[in-house]
């Protein structure tokens, strides 16, 4: 079985890659994840 999650999330204001304001995934392809662990975070 598979779950697909699609969602809107805040975007970075600048075009800098290291800008932490927008949504960033904390996981990458191939990672194992468990219920309740963060998929991604953002800062305002």
């Amino acid at each position, binding site marked *: 079985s598979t*779950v*697909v999650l*699609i969602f809107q*999330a*805040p975007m970075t204001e600048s075009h800098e890659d290291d800008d932490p304001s927008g949504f960033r995934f904390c996981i990458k*392809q191939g990672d194992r994840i*468990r219920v309740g662990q963060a998929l991604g975070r953002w800062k305002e």
Partner: protein
Amino acid sequence: ASFFAKKLSGSAQARASSDGGAAGSEGSSYLVPGATVATLLMLGALHARRLYDDKKVEEAREKGIEIEFQPDVKATFLRLLPLRSISRFWGFLTNVEVPVWMRPYLCRAWARAFHSNLEEAALPLEEYSSLQEFFVRALKEGSRPIDPDPKCLVSPVDGTILRCGELKAAGAMIEQVKGLSYSVYALLGASSFLPMVAGGKTNEDEVEKESVTEEERKKSWWRVSLASPKIRDPVSACPMKGLFYCVIYLRPGDYHRVHSPANWNVLSRRHFSGRLFPLNERATRTIRNLYVENERVVLEGLWQEGFMALAAIGATNIGSIELYIEPELRTNRPKKKLLQSETPEERFYEPEGVGIMSKKGDEMAVFNMG
């Protein structure tokens, strides 16, 4: 398994007749241990096969080889199989009540074959009366702590990340494997209120020219998407900025309950009664449009940052999806029509525009065997 069971039953019957028929009922009592041994052998074989496949995939990844789409004869053959009937029969088998003494062996065999953590199970193994009951087991309190950060989105399931990223391209496509993608519209349904902008603007700068602020956009995407769902062309339309996706695969040994990824209001549910192809890695690279062909339940709603949709996709072995927010929903039903309609069955939750509130970490659904 049936051969093994027959052999055992045959020898038991021969023994019974040599005893003058007095122990005729003993014949059937051998069937259960025979079937158990056969099941254990099968699980062992599956485990060995899985280890071999994992090793091959790992070796390929180490070499930097990305899995590509390669249609094969087996995938074509799968389309001819009555997978729904097979799935339902598998569900029936796994629902059969198992004798108490045998339950721990069965659960341990399953756990060993598919890497389940038995220490997390909420109940002693003797209390799971069938494999299905063990499969959908709850976990001990505190086994899955929910990240308390209000500015994070949590995983709804245990599993492996297959894909994640931002939806940018026209038509909002998600890559299944290298060289093969599927449209989010095909996955969620044409009536989805996915926030899109018309006109096929693939360049981010062009989208920025719209001068829509974040706040305005949050308020307006309902209008954009609901105003003209029939006129909108999903292929040429582009997803709004800040639309992300994540595809998570659940192995047979994983915990199979689905939790809420955030505080959100579930506004609608769509049920696509599609096919029930397997969803393993091999199927992913050999069966075209796997995720948009399989039976699935899509929940759509709103969270603090806007749109959210969760699609739970069934497979042959784990074919049915049960929603805690709508217990009467039945999936993996026998097909009545030869040609199944493509139109999904849709329901909007009451009250209109509010739907059902689900808190971060709440249990929402469960995948059942068969």
